[in-house]
């Protein structure tokens, strides 16, 4: 704790640290808060506590496919979505055709992962604000998704399931029935969540009109995903720049409307995630209907991956926003350079802009509402 006299106002200011060990920073983030009484005048995010050398590893691996486990570990809450972007980038570099069945399974897995990620994000957000029971209810649902994943991939959290132009193994025969059963049982739970948390009076008071992110500021900071949509911008890469087979499905892009407070506040960013889960269920249902029953998921996997000399940038919509992979190839067996454009990192830079002038107790709500994953921030 350091006290300084502000040059501008002449008031006594106090600098306190939030983190790196703090239960509400969602990992190892350190925020230097400059306070004037209870009002935050400045926030300096201090990162690098989880820098795990992803880019170095991508260059050092002797095969393109060996990078996939490390993409899992970037955003460990939505591992499937991280793999998806990377394999799409390689498929476009190699100009490979992906079998129909593979695409459908990928979309189902990616959307299930999106729901699982939002469940954790919402649960932890409620937990930060003192709502403990929604966290337990949501984790019950999340475990059901993890069960489906476990049966298909063999892992609970980090899957290493997608391969270039294929999958590591085929789904089991009961996969369709399992997933359909989950979709059927999960729909009523969203209503339960709305009763329990979304329209809870205390929750609304903690989140409405707090951390307002206007549309223009969101554009200036290159925000994406639920953070941008919470400010009322209809922007979703699955619709605006379709990848995989997302152009075949019907779904809406939920946006914030300022229903209980100002447009772009913490509650808007939260409710966008809740509504997105419903849309993901719609996509899963359509994909289950269209999924071909026959087909080898491993037939198109290339024996060796040697892309032509060149570079590519591929962006996909992860639960947190736009994840971009920039890959440079020099004709060798390993990538010359892989750069990941992480949405969490971008959203962390929005934090000082939206938390200035709010109370110190609201800092937790603002950090929770942008839903960062520190593994992705530091990579």
């Amino acid at each position, binding site marked *: 704790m350091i006290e300084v006299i502000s040059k501008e106002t002449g008031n006594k200011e106090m600098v306190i640290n939030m983190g*790196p*060990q*703090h*239960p509400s920073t969602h*990992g*190892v983030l350190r925020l230097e808060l400059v306070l004037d009484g209870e009002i935050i005048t400045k926030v300096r995010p201090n990162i*690098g*506590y*989880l*820098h*795990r*050398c992803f880019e*170095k*590893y991508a260059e*050092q691996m002797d095969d393109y496919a060996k990078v996939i*486990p*490390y993409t899992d*570990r970037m955003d*460990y*809450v939505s591992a499937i979505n991280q793999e998806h972007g990377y394999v799409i980038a390689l498929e476009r570099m190699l100009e490979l055709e992906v079998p129909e069945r593979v695409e459908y399974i990928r979309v189902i897995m990616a959307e299930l992962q999106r729901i699982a990620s939002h469940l*954790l994000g919402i649960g*932890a957000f409620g937990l930060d604000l003192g709502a403990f029971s929604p*966290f*337990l*209810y949501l*984790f*019950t649902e*999340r*475990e059901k998704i*993890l069960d489906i994943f476990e049966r298909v991939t063999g892992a*609970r*959290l*980090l899957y290493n399931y997608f391969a270039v132009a294929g999958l590591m193994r085929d789904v089991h025969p009961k996969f369709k029935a399992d997933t359909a059963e989950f979709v059927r049982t999960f729909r009523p739970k969203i209503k339960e969540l709305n009763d329990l948390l979304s329209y809870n009076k205390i929750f609304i008071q903690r989140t409405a009109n707090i951390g307002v992110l206007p549309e223009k500021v969101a554009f200036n900071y290159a925000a994406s995903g639920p953070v941008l949509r919470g400010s009322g911008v209809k922007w979703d890469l699955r619709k605006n720049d379709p990848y995989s087979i997302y152009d075949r499905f019907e779904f809406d892009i939920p946006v914030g409307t300022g229903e209980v407070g100002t447009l772009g506040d913490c509650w808007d960013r939260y409710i966008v995630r809740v509504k997105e889960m419903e849309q993901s269920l719609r996509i899963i249902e359509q994909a289950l209907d269209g999924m071909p029953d026959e087909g080898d998921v491993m037939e198109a996997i290339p024996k060796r991956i040697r892309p032509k000399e060149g570079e590519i940038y591929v962006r996909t919509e992860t639960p947190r926003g736009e994840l971009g992979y920039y890959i440079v190839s020099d004709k060798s067996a390993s990538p010359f350079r892989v750069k990941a454009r992480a949405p969490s990192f971008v959203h962390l830079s929005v934090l000082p802009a939206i938390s200035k002038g709010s109370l110190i107790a609201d800092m937790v709500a603002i950090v929770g509402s942008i839903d960062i994953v*520190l*593994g992705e921030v530091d990579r």
Partner: protein
Amino acid sequence: MGMLDKKYHDSNIIIVGLESALNWARKNSLWYEQFGLACCAIEMMATAASRYDFDRFGIIPRSSPRQADVMIVAGTVTMKMASRILRLYEQMSEPRYVISMGSCSNCGGPYWEHGYHVLKGVDKVVPVDVYVPGCPPRPEALLEGFLKLQEKITGETILQKKESVK
């Protein structure tokens, strides 16, 4: 107390060694420090949540190291974080225990070879009692780690002077 309910007319006395009584009490209320570093923290949360339920073992999360008995190092320990972990460990009151969860904090894990910013094992900065393998370990594995720690506590002799311990 279940099967002992309404069985006796007077209050009773049990005779037990002081050390084993203390150990019995300590092993059944292991409060852990809520301190997630990386991927393993998500599995730690899952272990604490509804399906696996830490609470039934008396394992309760605390947000401050000063109230905690156990530190679960859940995730990759980087060079920048290592000194902070040591500081958190020093803030814990004795007797204190450390569970190293996952390959990263055991030995560097998948970041062992080229991880220029990754500490190759948290045991380089703090003493570790139980290592839980896996990347990330399943919740059952973490529970097993806690049971092993309980076993370890059962045999402890912290009240006796060192030379009298056989």
